[in-house]
């Protein structure tokens, strides 16, 4: 099983969630696990969190994994407030 990296931009919100979701979906449909490089990402809205959640669920149904990489303090804070601490796997 291979992993493929998807690099996110500065924000993950309602403006780009569909594009990101399609990007991750394309990786998973190839049978690869996905590493989401969030080094540049400073803001994740609730719609953005839904994309990550959707990705994790979709990966699980295919026996694949989603890993988050380079999550910075601002995004980690959003994750903590919304109870997603420890829900995702990190690399």
């Amino acid at each position, binding site marked *: 099983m291979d992993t493929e990296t998807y690099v996110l931009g500065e924000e993950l919100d*309602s403006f780009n969630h569909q594009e990101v979701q399609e990007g991750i979906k394309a990786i998973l449909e190839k049978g690869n696990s996905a590493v989401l490089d969030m080094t540049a990402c400073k803001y994740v*809205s*609730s*719609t953005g*969190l*839904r994309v990550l*959640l*959707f990705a994790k*669920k979709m990966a699980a149904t295919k026996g694949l994994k989603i890993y988050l990489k380079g999550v910075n303090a601002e995004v980690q804070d959003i994750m*903590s*407030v*919304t*109870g*997603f*601490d420890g*829900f995702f796997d990190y690399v």
Partner: protein
Amino acid sequence: MTRRLLHIRESLASRITLRVVLYVVVVIGISAYVGNYYVLKIVKAIQEGGILYAIGMRRMAIALTAVFLLTMVVLTYLLRRTIHRLIAPLTTFTQAADEVARGNLQAKLPEIHSNDEMYYLRQSFSTMQQSLAQQMEELKQVNEAKGRMEGELKVARDMQLSMLPKAYSPTADSRLDIYGSLTPAREVGGDLYDFFVRDGKLFFCIGDVSGKGVPAALVMAQTMCQFRIVASYIDDVNMITTYINKIMSDGNDTMVFVTFFVGVLDPSTGHLEYCNAGHNKPLVNGQFLDAKPGLPLGVEENATYEAGECEIPVGTMLFLYTDGLTEAMTEKHDMFGSQRLIGNLQSDLDCKAQIERMTQAVHDFVGDAPQSDDLTMLAIKYAYLKFDN
């Protein structure tokens, strides 16, 4: 338009007529030259051959010139008539264009039997009429659908807002002062709050569905409904959250989730029990409540939650909100933030006044920037506690 085109037509005709007149002048010139040639010939003939021969030559010259002139006049007339006939349909086209501009797309076009530019103009004009009619029809249908949608959304908005509980006003008989405010970013939204009193206790909740608009509103209504049902029978906040989460997680293929905070306050003691499913921590007397967030509702069917409890002193305000408040943005994307939130809390205000103050502060902060997220606040106080005995 008609007048302008007619003017062009007139000027076209005039220009052509002028040109023909010029030709005639040239022809007269040539005739004069030819005439002169014959005069010279006549003079020469008189000198050489006698007067009779000369007279014959002169007559012939006059006859030739006359025929020439007559031909030119007839040609000019025919040319003018032909031009008039050729451009006559333009008048009808102009009238048709005016009709179309007034909205009559079925305006009659001139019949063209020739196979020239006029014929092609008629074809183009006719295609334009058909295409315009089709587009107008499509636009009409789109507008009708849009109007219907807008109407339905307006009803949906009224329905959504009417789902929310009415405020408890602080009166002499009331133990509670509660006020909530919900402002969707669009016609309908995904924020929610609810409260009701059962067995002498206040059950309340606040929540935020991920996303906005109609999809979020559907989940908002579902969550409100589940809270009402579950909390009508169960007192334990952890159990309330766990049950609602199970229901919301079932078949949640689109992975819409709800951050949710539920509390049960006993106004006779000030004891508050709460459970937090990924929602922003409420404030008690300007301090964030230590409400450890579990996963939002709908994420994981078997998620477990942790209940918390604390004592709320009489007169202390419990202030709940959604992230539409702290993340309210200016046009430069600056956020309202927790510090401004805390800075605008004022302990001596009643709940309604407090929320109005906060709403004003947010409006002042964001200025003309459009509201980016649903904004909800719920304030609870039991300063007006009055024991029956």
